[in-house]
């Protein structure tokens, strides 16, 4: 069915494809008929025919490729993998023009020596394009077979071990079907063993989705390989010449610099996942290869930095899973934080003062702390910040604060105590406006327990939180939510990124100070990179355009707004236009202003032509405050949500 359809219009292609579908059905029927006739005539010719399942109409539109491996048949040591390729609606994909097949063998944990991790052994990588290393059969119904060029035993000098877990990876895509339909690059692995049963053991440590929470669509070697299960078939000691390129040490060492969250938490990448059988290997199978790739100051065999160890047999004797989990996860922190909760239970304006009360409790025991914060010996630091004027994105960049551990409450008893923060800058109509209280602090702790600060030097930072309030009460609704701790946490961990000591609520706390009252430098080439107003700060930080953070190497696709932006109540990404009315123009230190949308877009799109386009469409760059706020911007007409050049469409959002 090698009909060249290039050069025809898409519509014509579709009609041809439909006809071809019909031809294919007829052919499938004929082949079924023929086969049954043959079967009726045959006496006993032994071998069964090729897979003859009815294929259904072939796929004409493909956005996703699914490869399902039916089986691996193993004849005299030569493997044949039988698989089916389909699209997102399970229609068979016929005529896949090329493929790569990788084969590797897994040695069980402890097999190569006591304490050693399970280990992949690379056999081969074979490809089919115009020619094939082995034998390739397209059964023309979505089913394919590939027979490797020879026996695995001896390939790459590796002995095939009966009973061992084997892996075959099929890579297809990156090219197109004969009708021109593009095939997305797809990797699919299949673990099997020669004894006919399920593999007796596996090495399922990490799901690629975990890598992609930060990296988006991670792919290597010309984007051909995009699954961790693919990487490990080659990145093992039997394939790569540099031990640093064995998968675990390679990945560990690649993340040593610029990692957006504490390296000490192995579970940032080794996320707890019960569906991955060896998910807890990071704590249960310590080896000098895995541990030494981060602890680079240790030379185990010579005893530098650690008592001498010639192999991995002893590691777990000291570094047992409990120890490792305690040292290398958030478990202790979570246990400590589980014993303390602080919340604002009431707040209201009293002139330019906010009156509020705070309740302290222990969620682990469901009991309250009856004393106020200044009397509790485990509180190292507990601060409340206040700002007002949500309608204008806050009235000041200098939020007022008090330290609860140092002040006596005005009144209160039995866990609820009243405090005041005075000197707020009020907005024009305080009665119709709102403010925010933010909480932050540190607790003294010992392993998993809260401890008297006099007895320990260890502190655990609490997760900062916020509470909106109006002139009369605390309120559910307040400042718009643009990014959340969860979206930030996809790379930075759950409120694990601390600034200025213990501020980690990236959703609302930072904005109490990092607001439009921060000024940009009038002379800056990229003004957004010179202001600490939150939106500009965050955009320019991640784009690597701030001088003070020259080494930022954004791990994902910077154009994927959804990596950080959340969705609003109606499910629309908060990166959409038009902007919320509270968003203020970018203010410069020479008292000039850039209009809101233009200020944001030009953070990244700062070429002359882009600036010219924005100016032509009503954008104001470094104008008067009146001009910048006059509402001349018409960006949303074309780039607004649902419009032809919707911001959400033109960015590679996932």
């Amino acid at each position, binding site marked *: 069915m090698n009909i060249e359809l290039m050069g025809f219009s898409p519509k014509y292609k579709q009609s041809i494809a439909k006809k071809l579908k019909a031809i294919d059905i007829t052919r499938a029927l004929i082949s079924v008929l023929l086969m049954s006739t043959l079967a009726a005539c045959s006496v006993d010719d032994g071998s069964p025919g090729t897979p003859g399942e009815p294929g259904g109409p072939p796929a004409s539109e493909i956005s996703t490729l699914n490869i399902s491996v039916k089986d691996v048949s193993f004849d005299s040591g030569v493997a044949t993998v039988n698989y089916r390729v389909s699209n997102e609606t399970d229609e068979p994909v016929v005529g896949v023009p090329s493929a790569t097949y990788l084969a590797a063998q897994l040695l069980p944990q402890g097999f190569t020596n006591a304490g050693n991790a399970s280990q992949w052994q690379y056999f081969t990588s074979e490809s089919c394009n115009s020619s094939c290393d082995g034998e390739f059969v397209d059964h023309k119904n979505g089913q394919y077979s590939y027979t490797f060029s020879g026996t695995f035993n001896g390939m790459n000098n590796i002995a095939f071990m009966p009973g*061992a877990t084997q892996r075959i990876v099929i890579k297809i895509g990156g090219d197109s079907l004969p009708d021109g339909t593009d095939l997305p690059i797809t990797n699919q692995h299949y673990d099997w063993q020669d004894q006919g049963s399920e593999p007796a053991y596996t090495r399922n440590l990490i799901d690629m989705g975990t890598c992609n929470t930060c990296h988006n669509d991670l792919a290597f070697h010309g984007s051909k390989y995009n699954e961790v299960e693919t990487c490990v078939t080659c990145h093992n000691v039997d394939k790569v010449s540099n031990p640093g390129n064995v998968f675990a040490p390679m990945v560990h060492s690649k993340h040593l610099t610029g990692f957006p969250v504490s390296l000490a938490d192995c579970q940032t990448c080794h996320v707890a996942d019960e569906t991955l059988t060896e998910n807890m290997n990071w704590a249960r199978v310590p080896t000098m290869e895995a541990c030494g790739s981060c602890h680079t100051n240790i030379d185990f065999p010579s005893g530098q930095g650690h008592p001498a160890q010639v192999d991995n047999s002893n590691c777990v004797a000291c570094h047992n899973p409990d120890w490792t989990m305690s040292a290398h996860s958030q478990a202790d922190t979570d246990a400590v934080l589980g014993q303390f909760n602080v919340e604002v239970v009431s707040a209201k304006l009293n002139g330019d003062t906010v009156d509020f009360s705070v309740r302290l409790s222990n969620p682990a025991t469901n009991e309250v702390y009856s004393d106020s914060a200044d009397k509790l010996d485990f509180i190292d630091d507990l601060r409340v910040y206040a700002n007002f004027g949500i309608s204008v994105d806050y009235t000041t960049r200098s939020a007022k604060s008090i330290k609860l551990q140092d002040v006596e409450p005005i009144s209160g008893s039995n866990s609820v105590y009243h405090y005041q923060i005075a000197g707020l800058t009020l907005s024009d109509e305080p009665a119709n406006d709102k403010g925010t209280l933010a909480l932050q602090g540190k607790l003294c702790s010992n392993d998993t327990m809260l401890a008297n600060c006099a007895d320990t030097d260890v502190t655990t930072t609490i997760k900062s939180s916020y509470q909106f309030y109006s002139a009369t009460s605390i309120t559910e609704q307040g400042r718009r939510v643009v990014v959340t701790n969860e979206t930030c946490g996809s790379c930075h961990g759950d409120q694990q990124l601390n600034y200025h000591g213990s501020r980690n609520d990236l959703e609302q706390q930072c904005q109490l100070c990092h607001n439009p009252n921060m000024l940009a430098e009038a002379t800056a080439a990229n003004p957004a990179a010179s202001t600490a107003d939150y939106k500009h700060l965050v955009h320019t930080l991640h784009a690597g355009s701030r001088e003070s953070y020259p080494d930022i190497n954004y791990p994902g696709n910077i154009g994927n707004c959804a990596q950080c932006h959340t969705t609003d109540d109606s499910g629309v990404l908060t990166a959409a236009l038009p902007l919320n009315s509270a968003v203020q123009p970018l203010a410069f230190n020479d008292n000039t202003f850039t209009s809101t949308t233009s200020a944001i877009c030009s953070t990244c799109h700062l070429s002359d032509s882009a600036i010219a386009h924005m100016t032509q469409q009503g954008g104001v760059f470094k104008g008067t405050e009146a001009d910048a706020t006059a509402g001349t911007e018409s960006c949303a007409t074309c780039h607004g949500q649902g419009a032809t050049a919707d911001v959400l469409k033109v960015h590679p959002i996932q």
Partner: protein
Amino acid sequence: MFRFNTPINTKLTMLALAIGASISPAFAEGYGLQNANRDKANTAKWECKRCVVESGFSGNISVRAAYNDADDIHFGNTSGTDKDGLVGSIDANLVNKSDSGYQTTFVADKLGYYTGSARLETGRTGQYKIGLGYRALAHYDTNAALTPYSASGDKLVLPDNWQTGAVTSQMPTLYDDAQQVSLSTQRDRYLIDAVYKGRFYQADINYQHEKRQGKRSFSGNFLTNSAMLAQPIDDSTDEFGAKLYFNGQGWLIGIESSFSQYNNDHSSLIWQNAFTPTFGAAYSGQSSVAPDNKAYRVGANAQLSGNGHQVLMHLGVASFTQDDAFLPATINGPSPALPVTSLDGKVDTTDMRLKYNSRPLRGLNIRASYDYSDRDNKTALNSYPQVVTDSYYAGTATNPEYDRTRQQAKVGAKYRFNRAVYLDAEYQYDHNDYSDLDRDRLRQNGLSAKVNYKISSAWSAWLKAEFSDRTGSAYNPVNTTSSQSNPYLRKSYLADRERDQYQLSVSYTPESAFSASANVRISNDDYDDTLVGLTQVDTQGYDLSASYLLNDDFIINAYLNQDWRDSDQAGSSNFGLSNWYVNTDEKSTLVGAGIDYRNLLDKKLNLGLDYSFSDGQSDTEVTQGIRSPYGDYFAERHNINAFAKYQLDEKMALRLDWIFENYQDSDWLNQGLALDAIPNVLIFGDLSHDYSSHYVGFTFSYEL
């Protein structure tokens, strides 16, 4: 059985005696002939009219000189001594009887060997008896162990010039400093006992002192490094016992008590670290040794019988104590304070037994019993600091109690259908309560049935079937271990289990020269709720034995015994469900034959020859997709034991003994391994045996 000289036979008898004695020492008296129902028996007819008691001095003395080939001391387990070359010993069997009924005997066996014994006994038959005894016991393991350590009191020290290494291969003087050391134990037991029989009572007292010396294997650990050490053994046990029994028509009542005391000449074991310390200054290690301890026991027994009913009652209480001073938590650096200076340990046990037997109908016996035993640890619970292998402080731990209460009830009946057939059936209920284990309670129901069929005067057979089902309370893995158990693991001794056992025995004992017996057994243990752990054990076995009496002086016997045991275990390498499996196949074979030929050469020569072959092996294979068999683990022995005894004249005889043994064993744990083969374990080297040894002895005996 016509065997005169078969070691197996002797062993079995000894074992049976030992088992009988240990299970119910109190009741042994109750089943004696004197307690039989002899109301209607005419005991006058039992008098032995031909038995003439000869008074005066009689007996024999033997002197033995032998050549013993003990290059490998393991042969000493067979020959009785590990001394290489010429060895000598004495046997004696002397009796002096007076007309008034006094009798003194002296018996000695291989006195002079490390396994010799002697006993002097005097008394008046049926009235009193006083005995003095000595018995030596020895066990020889190996003399090929290699170690750089030498013993000095409680200490095992390395040579002055020893250079430590991080791993064994980095210990430069290891091979120069390694010396052979013997691992064996020698026990010398001294006894004194007396019994006095009154008209309706009997009193026994006995005292035994046992001294033990030798060396055994000990593992000296420093975190992940370990050295195999030859730990010196120098200890003694004193036991004192007394019994007083009263009996009358249809009743027996008695009390008994015992006291034992253990003294260890060593107060600890201190050894130098052959490795470079992993942490800090762990240059020496100290381990506690068995502490001095005491045990007291008092028991009471009563037995009532009459009209076909019999009731047995037993109550015993015992107390075990030890209050040795604690060693410090570590000898390397300051030791954390201990909460108390001594454990002051005390464990009390109570055991009770009630048993009822009755014969309500002709041919029907019924029985019921209830057993109760309780272990109550009364030691104070404290929080003790733990310094792991004298290296680092690892928090505190509380001593667990491990209390246990066991109750067992049995109901059984035996019905005799006719002279040839009877059926015996029993139901058992076993109830156990534990503390500090993964399960608080275990219950087991069991049923057994046995049919005996006496087919003819020569042929008889029996078939026995047993079934038991064990279950218990919820399984909650203990959290007192530093690393938690796999949640699916079921420890085999606490796991649910179904057990089937069947046994068939056939014997042929005609009133003719040939007799034989056969026995077949099969069992299956199914741990039906275990996903990780021991899942199944199957055993099969059979015995065959036959003897043929050619004439009054010539006997041939032969026997063959084989047993198989097949165990399956499931494990997990990822703390989840099982993903690796172990199969262990064990097999033992014992085959032997012997002849005894007596009264040759004008009744002057007796000959005996026994040959036996035994082979035990264990094959373990781990399967995790890939099959990985373990190495060799076996012991194989050929043994020939022959003698010729020639009567020189009426008084003197000469005997020649020849023992030959070909023995091989090996354990993959150390098979073919050099001292530094394992980086973090300093081992004794290869401890396999492979020898062919002879013992040739000449014995001159004189009949007094």
